[in-house]
């Protein structure tokens, strides 16, 4: 168990709602949910997940900490915003879903090997290096994330798309050597470090 997780457990004891309110983006909205079910019924991916937003919000209030933070549902949110638009109480549901995912990730309680989580990590590492996304390296990293053999298979399967992107000049092969970057890389890195420091302090994750 990570120390951050231990600290959070000690601090909020059995009050998971309080913990969510303090640490999850827009978490203070969770108590406003009236359990009408509109978000659950409006989600285009709804039938494919275990926990709809409606259910997650009820689980939070019922103190089901492990089930919520370990759930793979909020990672499945595609940010279509259907639920936000329709929620009669105007809960920023999409943001809460991403906030929950992020918090579970930071406590390392999020499901291992969850593809969205893995891709998000790859994306972040790629971006944080130069302050720009290197699409070629990012695509390759994605192909090869499950090992070399699978990577080759993935690359072969996507070959036509890749060539198409090259032709349309949407992918630059020269990106493989270095690629485009920000002017002030160390400045960007400092900014990110500072932002993280502030956020960690606020959330007690330091």
């Amino acid at each position: 168990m990570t120390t951050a997780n231990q600290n959070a457990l000690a601090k909020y004891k059995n009050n998971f709602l309080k913990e969510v309110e303090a640490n999850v983006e827009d978490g203070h909205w969770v108590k406003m949910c009236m359990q009408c079910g509109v978000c659950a019924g409006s989600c285009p991916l709804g039938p494919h997940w275990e926990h709809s937003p409606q259910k997650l919000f009820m689980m939070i209030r019922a103190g089901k900490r492990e089930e919520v933070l370990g759930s793979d549902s909020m990672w499945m949110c595609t940010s279509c915003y259907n639920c936000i638009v329709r929620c009669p109480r105007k809960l920023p549901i999409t943001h809460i879903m991403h906030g929950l995912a992020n918090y579970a990730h930071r406590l390392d309680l999020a499901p291992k090997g969850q593809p969205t989580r893995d891709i998000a990590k790859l994306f972040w590492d790629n971006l944080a290096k130069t302050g720009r996304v290197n699409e070629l390296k990012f695509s390759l990293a994605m192909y090869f994330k499950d090992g070399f053999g699978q990577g080759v298979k993935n690359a072969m399967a996507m070959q036509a798309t890749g060539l198409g992107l090259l032709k349309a000049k949407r992918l630059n092969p020269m990106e493989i050597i270095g690629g485009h970057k920000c002017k002030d890389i160390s400045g960007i890195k400092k900014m990110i470090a500072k932002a993280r420091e502030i956020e960690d302090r606020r959330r007690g994750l330091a």
Partner: protein
Amino acid sequence: MTAPIATNQTILVVGGGISGLTAALEAAECGKQVILVEKTPALGGRTAQLYRYFPKMCHPTCGLEINLKRIKGNPNVKVMTMTEVTAVAGSRGDYAVTLKVSPRFVNESCTACGECAKAVQSEVADAFNYGLAKVKAAYLPHAMAYPQRYVIDPSIVGTAEGEAAKAACKYGAVDLGMKEETVQLNVGAVIWATGWRPFDANRIQPYGYDRYANVITSVEFERLADPHGPTGGKLLRPSDGKEAKNIAFIQCAGSRDENYLRHCSRICCMATLKQTQYVREACGDGGKSTVYYIDIRAIDRFEDFYQNVQKDATVSFVKSKVARIAENKDNGNPVLHGVDTEGYHRYAVEHDLVVLAVGMEPEVTGLREQGGLPADIIQDSSNFIEGSKDGGMFGAGAASSPLDVNRAVQSATAASLKAIQVIHKTASTEAA
């Protein structure tokens, strides 16, 4: 027309629904002079458009008839129909009010014989039946209308049909030369009993009221259930005229929703519980009502009504706000999609007909912008009228809060008493 004589001892009541009637009568029966203005051609308001009303399931005729009788017999009340307020100047105890009177094209000589209607072929949407049917362009607003006087629709004025209507009237009551008039009045207090309107169901896009014939509103359902309504009291669905037996009711259609109406409309749970009994009345044990709800709010003493409906085997309840409606193209049945809150089960259920329990929106919503509501009026965040800053104007009935008939009448009596106090104060300052 001749403008009634009014002074700052007069009370103006705006709106001739059950609340306006009550407020006017309470003041008139205390000896006060009252002018009652109503924008439609007849008194009664939306209560007259109900088939039956809870809790006793009586017909609205009984409540209205007695009030209309009191109005007819009381010389202190002057009724002006087809009249709207266009401006209010001055302050408590001394208002100058401007009224706009639209032409009815039929004068006091009308005996409601109906000969003019027989002479006319054109039809217009029947407002009394929420547009579910059409009426002749010369019409009586509804059977109980007061005044019992026909109306000629402006669309046939200046046409041969208009002339035919005029020629058909033996009493010389059709007057096609009538013009819109402006009337100025002096009054001491104003009661706004302007009531409510059904929330525009088209705005709730996921429910497809604008796209699916068999998705209707609760106010339309009242008209379907009424033997004097467009279907003779049969619950026939709009798409194919088939009798609807398996009917879904969707609660909070527009209400309790930050995107539409913020407030709980308070009466629609009771209205739906009542309407499930229309289904029972029409279909017996063969009918089936399903109520989709967030929570049932059987206000005040109506819990027993709810409990009795719960015992009815033809009625079932699903705790869920329906997320969206689709349509089965083969049979025109609406298909309801959602997730229930008691177990989080996903459902897709077909019904013959869907009734949206639409919310009550104050009729004055948007009126201030058009200049029809004085700047001094205070409205809450849902546009219900709380009163006026100067303390001389009051909201009554459904204009002041989403109320059922019983509570609307109580509210109107209270408003009337407040208006009488304003008049008394004005009289005593003038005497001093």
